[in-house]
Structure formats: C-alpha cells, structure tokens
C-alpha cells in the first residue's frame, strides 16, 4: 500500500518561539497539500461531485433542453428564478460545480505524482526477502525433497515462469526463492487515474475551442457554407471561439429521403449531400458526394455534420396584377412530430414597389397548416408523415407584416400585433392541393406549386474529441487491470538436510536432500489465490496439504479484517 492511503498526519507540535513566519506558512501549505491529496479527501470530493451533479437529474438544463427550462419557468414562476440565480439550470458550468472537479483534479495530480514515482522505483527494486517464519503466512506448506536445494531452486524457477523472482542464499547452504506477480494491478490503477486526468483535460479543451451550430437547409440543392456565426440559425461557441475563423467548408443538400412504417413510425432518414473542404474550395475542385444518416454523420477534416431534423416547405408562386411573379419555398415547422402536420408563414413583398407607405399596404403572407398526407375534408389534418397527399390550409394576409419594426419575428408565423391593430388583414382562406391556386380581390393569384423538404443540420467541431476517446479507452483498460489482476507473493526456502545424518554404516553419505517450506501471500484479494498456491504446492511438494491460518498475521486492505466490522458483540 502506498502512503496516500494513510490519513494525513496530525498537526505538527507547536513551533518553537522565534520560528520564522514563512516556516509556518510552509508547514501550513504542506499540511494543506497532504490533506488535499489524501485518500479521504479524494473520497469526500467524489461524493461532493455526485451530490453536485444530482440536481441535473431532476431539473432541466439549458444546454440540452432549453424548452424544458422555459416550461419549468412557466410552471414554477417563483421558484425558477431563485434556482436560476444559483445556476441550477446551467449546473455543469457553475463555479461551484467547476470548483469540485478542479479540486478533484488537483487532488488527483497530488496523488498520482508520488505514486508513479514509487511505482517506478518499485520496478527496479528486488522482491521482498523470504520471511523468517513461513508457517505464519496465510498459505503455507512444508515437506522434504530428495534433491539438493540448488535443484529445488532451479525447478522452482522453471515452474514460476512469468513471475518476478529473486534467488537468495542464506547461511548453511540454504537457498530461497522469492517471487511476486501481479504488479500490473498497480500499473492499471495508475493508468486509470492518469486517463481520468487526461479525460478531464480533453473535455476542458473541447469546451474551450469547440463549437456547435444548427442550420436549416432546403434539400433542393441549396448550399450552406461554414463562413461564420451568421451562417447559422443558432450557434453555441466554446469559450475561446469568437466565430471569426471557422474552418471553411461548403455543403450542398441535394435530396432528403425518409422512410416510414405503415403505422407512421419513422424507419430511416437520409440526406444526399456534396461537400467541399477548404482545399477543394481553394482549387475550385468538384465537391465530394456523401450521405448523412441518423447515427451516421458526415465526418471530414475534424468537422462533423449531423442530420438532426427535417420538415416540409410548401412552395407558392404569387402572380401580381401587373403580371410579375415571385416564387418562394421556406421551411414550415412540424407541430406534430408523428404526422408532421406543420405550420408556417411564407412572406412576399410586392415587386417594384419603392415607396415605403405602399409597400406596407401590399405585403402578403401565406400562413396556416400544411399536411403531408391530408385527411381531406374542410379541416386539414395530417394522417401520415410521408408526402402522399399534401394539402395546405392557407390563410392569406395582406398589409404591413411589421418586418421593418426592428423587432425580430418568427419565420414560422406573422406578427399577431399587426393583425390586432388592423394593419394586417386576412383577405382569403382556402384549402389547396399542389397545382391549385386562389385569386385575391385585387386579381393577385397564389398558386400552391409543390412541396420541398428541408433538413436541419448540426455542425460540430471539437478538436479534443479523439483524445478524449483515447483517454476513455485507456481508462477502461486501466480499471479492468486494476480490479482483476491479483497481486501475490510466493516464497520457497530449501534447507539442505544435515549432511551425515543420513550416512550409512559403510561410510558413504547419501546425496543430501532438502527440507522445503513454501509460503504464499495474496496482497490484494485473498480469495482466489488458494487454488494457484495449491497447484504450485502440488508441483513442488506432492502429497503435502496446505495449512492455513484462522487469522492471518496480516490482512490486506481489500480483505476486511475482523476489526473492521465492529463485530465484537
């Protein structure tokens, strides 16, 4: 066991008078360091970490589920702002959560450095000499062997292949073998803790230099370019990312295809794209075709592009009384995730109008509901998510859309306050299937041409992600070794049978045999070592049973000793 397992030493005795202040400071620093890097502190910090993460299991978090946080605010109008003050909805970036893992991090470093040093020293050190009294060990056997001690030692060596092993000589021709196995346990433990450290660093690097952005792209050959924050609908930058030098690449979405089962449950999604990385853009080379599917993002040059959502965009052509035409398809928002009933607003400016006042009287918006598979009938509802019988229930508004007010407005709706003020008026309402059109009172016709599909893509960039994966794999290997390898020791002492004791009457002495003693000690997990010891015993000392002790002279930390259980009734 390492020193770190012991609790930190108590305060040192009172300093003698006249001691320099910096010595006190040094002592304080040393004690603080020892305290911080003790096993007990690590344990407390682990529990604190679990406790600090706990609210995240109950309460929604802004990162993964902003909508749920909104709902929580609506449901708990007094409690939510209070919780928000202490950062509960951004739990994992609060100072107090960071403080806990930072302390763990420091503790881990302080704990690992000396242990690694010890381990390196230990690699060069010889094995522990054979104890005087082998019969006190938990595993023990004794017997005689007709061969000389040297032969016994040679035989033992042969049988203990793979063990770390030292042969020593004791006075009077006694030979001993001390062997150890299972040092990988400690190595595994160190690898595990170091990987943990690496993992934390990797995660932090990702949080600093990574970013994520969402963008909706029409699946009709439209292009998205990663040129800056403004290319995105939403952008979540890392702490060190200002969005000015994103890796340039462009992506064209040619086609989107969804398959559904007869009951409407989705079966697969797929987008066909072409992308150009920085080099292709620079050379003007042809883009590379690729597909993006659920669970199967597009990966190139450290960029990842995911297909995370999709929907429909009804396309309308407006023919104005003067004969001018405008065609537009913008995304409508699915309001029912299983039937893809969608709502939205497609907005038009009258072409050729230059004066603001006229413009504000003649803007058009087509809003309403869109059903990919319409139920038919007067009220449009959707019965199936695929595009089999599309129909739109169109409400046409004319007037001032309020686009110049400076207020942001949703692309999926119109500004209701304009309607309330009478500045935006509904002028028609009809259900249309593709190819059908309606005519407004001023002669403007609106045709529902067709339906396009859109996809929502997420671009993710995390420069440390591969490093995190490597650390995670090392962590797994480390913990597996640490928990499965058994550390054990095995000792042999071969004492020559006293010469002369066996001399026969004719004066010849029989070749000296040996009395052989074996001892075994499991250093980490006693249960399970017995079989191996018994096998070695059978090899080296046939016909000798192993003796075992009721209470071993020492117990190992994994082996709870009798005193640990408060068991004295």
């Amino acid at each position, binding site marked *: 066991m390492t020193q770190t397992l012991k609790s930190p030493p108590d305060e040192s005795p009172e300093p003698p008078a006249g001691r320099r202040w910096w010595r006190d400071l040094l002592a304080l620093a040393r004690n603080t360091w020892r305290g911080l890097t003790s096993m007990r502190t690590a344990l407390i910090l682990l529990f604190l970490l679990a406790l600090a993460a706990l609210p995240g299991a109950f309460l929604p978090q802004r990162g993964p589920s902003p909508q749920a946080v909104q709902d929580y605010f609506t449901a708990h109008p007094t409690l939510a702002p209070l919780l928000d003050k202490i950062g509960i909805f951004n739990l994992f970036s609060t100072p107090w959560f960071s403080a806990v893992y930072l302390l763990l991090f420091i503790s881990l470093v302080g704990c690992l450095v000396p242990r690694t040093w010890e381990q390196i020293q230990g690699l060069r050190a010889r094995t522990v000499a054979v104890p005087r009294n082998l019969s006190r060990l938990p595993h023990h056997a004794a017997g005689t062997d007709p061969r000389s001690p040297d032969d016994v030692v040679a035989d033992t060596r042969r049988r203990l292949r793979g063990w770390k092993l030292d042969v020593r000589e004791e006075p009077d021709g006694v030979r001993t073998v001390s062997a150890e196995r299972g040092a990988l346990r400690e190595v595994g433990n160190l690898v595990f803790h170091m990987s943990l450290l690496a993992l934390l660093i990797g995660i932090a690097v990702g949080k600093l230099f990574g970013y994520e952005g969402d963008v909706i792209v029409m699946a009709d050959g439209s292009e998205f370019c990663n040129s800056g924050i403004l290319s995105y609908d939403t952008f979540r930058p890392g702490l060190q990312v200002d969005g000015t030098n994103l890796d340039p690449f462009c992506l064209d979405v040619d086609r989107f295809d969804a398959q559904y089962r007869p009951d409407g449950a989705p079966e697969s999604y797929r987008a066909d794209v072409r992308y150009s990385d920085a080099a292709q853009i620079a050379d003007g080379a042809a883009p590379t075709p690729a597909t993006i599917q659920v*669970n199967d993002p597009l990966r190139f040059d450290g960029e990842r592009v995911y297909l995370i959502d999709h929907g429909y965009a009804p396309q309308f052509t407006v023919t104005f009384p003067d004969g001018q035409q405008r065609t537009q398809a913008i995304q409508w928002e699915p309001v029912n995730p299983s039937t893809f009933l969608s709502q939205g607003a497609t907005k038009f400016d009258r072409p050729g109008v230059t004066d603001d006042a006229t413009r504000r009287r003649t803007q058009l918006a087509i809003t309403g509901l869109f059903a990919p598979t319409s139920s038919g009938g007067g009220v449009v509802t959707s019965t199936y998510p695929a595009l089999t019988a599309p129909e739109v229930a169109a409400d046409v508004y004319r007037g001032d859309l309020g686009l110049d007010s400076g207020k942001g407005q949703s692309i999926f709706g119109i500004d209701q306050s304009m309607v309330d003020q009478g500045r935006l008026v509904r002028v028609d309402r009809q259900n249309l299937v593709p190819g059908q059109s309606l005519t407004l009172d001023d002669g403007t016709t609106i045709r529902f041409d067709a339906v396009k599909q859109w996809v929502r893509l997420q671009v993710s960039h995390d420069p440390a992600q591969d490093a995190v994966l490597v650390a995670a794999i090392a962590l797994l290997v480390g913990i597996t070794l640490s928990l499965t390898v058994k550390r054990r020791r095995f000792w042999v002492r071969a004492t020559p049978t006293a010469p002369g004791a066996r001399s026969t009457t004719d004066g010849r002495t029989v070749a000296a045999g040996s009395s052989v003693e074996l001892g075994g000690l499991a250093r980490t997990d006693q249960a399970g070592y*017995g079989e191996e010891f018994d096998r070695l015993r059978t090899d080296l000392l046939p016909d000798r049973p192993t003796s075992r002790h009721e209470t071993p002279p020492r117990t190992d930390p994994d082996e*709870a000793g009798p005193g640990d259980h408060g068991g004295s009734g």
Partner: protein
Amino acid sequence: MNVDAPLGDFGDVLFYSALAVYILAMLLHAVEHGMLRRVASAEAVPAAVPAAVGAGGGDEPGTTTVVPDDPAAGDDAAGDDPAPAGPRTRDGRPPRPASERFGRMGVSLTVLGLGLHIAMLVVRGVAADRPPWGNMYEFVAAVTLVGVLAWLVVLFRRPELRRLGVFVLLPVIVLMMLGGTVLYTQTAPVVPALHSYWLAIHVTAAVISSGILLFAGVASVLYLLRSVHDSNGRMAWTAKLPGAAVLDRVAYRATAVAFPIWTFAVIAGAIWAEAAWGRYWGWDPKETTAFIAWVVYAGYLHARSTAGWRGRKAAAVNVVGFAVMSFNLFFVNLVVTGLHSYAGVG
C-alpha cells in the same frame, strides 16, 4: 423490420412462467431459511470446521450464529477452501437435513426459471427482430436475468451461500412484477435513432453491469443488517445470514466485476451519442444519472481502501449506488424527459 406479434405474446407467457417459478423458488428458500436453527456460536462451530474459519473471521464469540446444518453451509470462511468436512452422523455419513433439501429444490427451480427467462428474451428478440432490450419491460427482464445468473455463478463457486436465495430472488421478483405490469410494452421495433449496433453494445453492457450490481446491492444490504446485529444483537434473524465478512467480500467482488463493465457501458453510450446526437456528452438527465452512479461506485471502491471507511460506511455507499441505478431506471425514464425517451411506456 417485421414484428411477429403472436411470437411476442408467447414470450410474455414465458416471462410469467419464469416469474412464477422464481416465486416458488423463493418460497422454498424461505422455508429453508426458516428451518435453520440459531444457537450461541460458542457451541455452534463444530470442531471439524475451524480450518474453514478463515481470514474474514466471521463469527465473534458471544454472537449467535447458525448451526452449519449441511456440509457446505457451516463456514463463514474467507472462502477459497474446498468445502470442509462437516459434522457427521454416527454411521459416518453426512446428514442431509430438511432445510438443505428445500434449499436444493429452491436452487433447481431457480435454474428452471432461468431457462424460461432466457427463452423469453430469445423469443422476444426473434419476434421483434432486434436485441431484446429496446424498452423498459425488456430491459428489466434482461437485468433480472443477469442478476439471477450472477447469483447462480456465485452459488456454484460458494455453495455455502445458498441461504441467501430468498433475499436475492425477492428484488428480482419485485422488479419482474413491475416490468410485467407498469412497464409492460408490446413487441415493437425501435425508432431510427436506436438503429445502431452501438445500441446492442451499450445497452448490453448496461444490462450486464446492472444485473451484477443488483446482486452486489443485495449483499451489501444484508451485510449492513448482519453487521448491525453483530454489534448490538438486534434483528436476531440476521444471525442466520452468512458472516459479515463473507457478505462484504461477495459484495465487493461483484462490484469489482461490474464496475469496469459499467464504465464500458457509459463509454459506449458516449460513442453512440456522438454518432446520433452530435456530442459525446450533453448532461442529458439519463447521462447525468449514469455519471452519478459511476462516481458513487468509484466512491465505494475507494472507500474500501480508505481507513475509517471500510465496512459499514463502504457498504452504505454501495447501497446508495444501487439506489441511483434504480432511480435511473424508473424515475429518469418515466418522469424526467430527455433524449433517452425510448422507454416505450404509455
């Protein structure tokens, strides 16, 4: 992906048969447990057994203990010993008391139940044409299966622990009852986000580790009860349990096996999340709770190496760990909404 509904229904029949057989097995173990006698330990440990009272030092003088009424049951020992020679009857044959017969019947029925249980999952997997742990009903069925399997493996290696049967089967039965009622879902394919071999890998690892941790949790609870009894003599029935040291050790060994598998499950989940959701970790409620459970179990392993934390405190941490796992299965799946909303309930 075709769903064979009648076959799925047959799987349900197998599920309930397995449950019924387990209940019967638990009752037999309960009878076994009831028949074990308690006496003061001073006379209880027969002379033939001391070699078996190994490193753990199970019974302290003055506490009560169980008469080792069958050859294998007498030792509260550290355990690598082969079954020690037990008490013998006058004609030299070891006695086979009634309690042992009931216990053995309980074990046989457990094995039978396990067979039905395995068949259920196979049928379900064939019916749905995917690994049979895509919703909570199937997940619970699979976790309890691993729990029973872990228990039988322990039993095979340490027959003297047989009297734990009733306590291991109890949570298995409770979980299966919940699975068959509240969580029940018809056979169905899963949504596209779940079509991935990482599903199979991630969830399989989670199932295996949860099952083993279920057993570890039971052992730690019993350890706590037994060790409280050892120190104050209350709850006399716990004297029939194996010694505190043995319980502590099996709990530790089971956790030590399960922890790397759980670690792997979390990592595989992160790999899957990276491919499906665009980030390897996003503090989704399910991820958060899995992380908390991992930290708590790491705390347990630490505690067993920390002076002043071994024994009861460590065992309490292990129980908390299992509580977090159960919370993750029930509360997070059913109450909290997150990306992991594939519970398939309701």
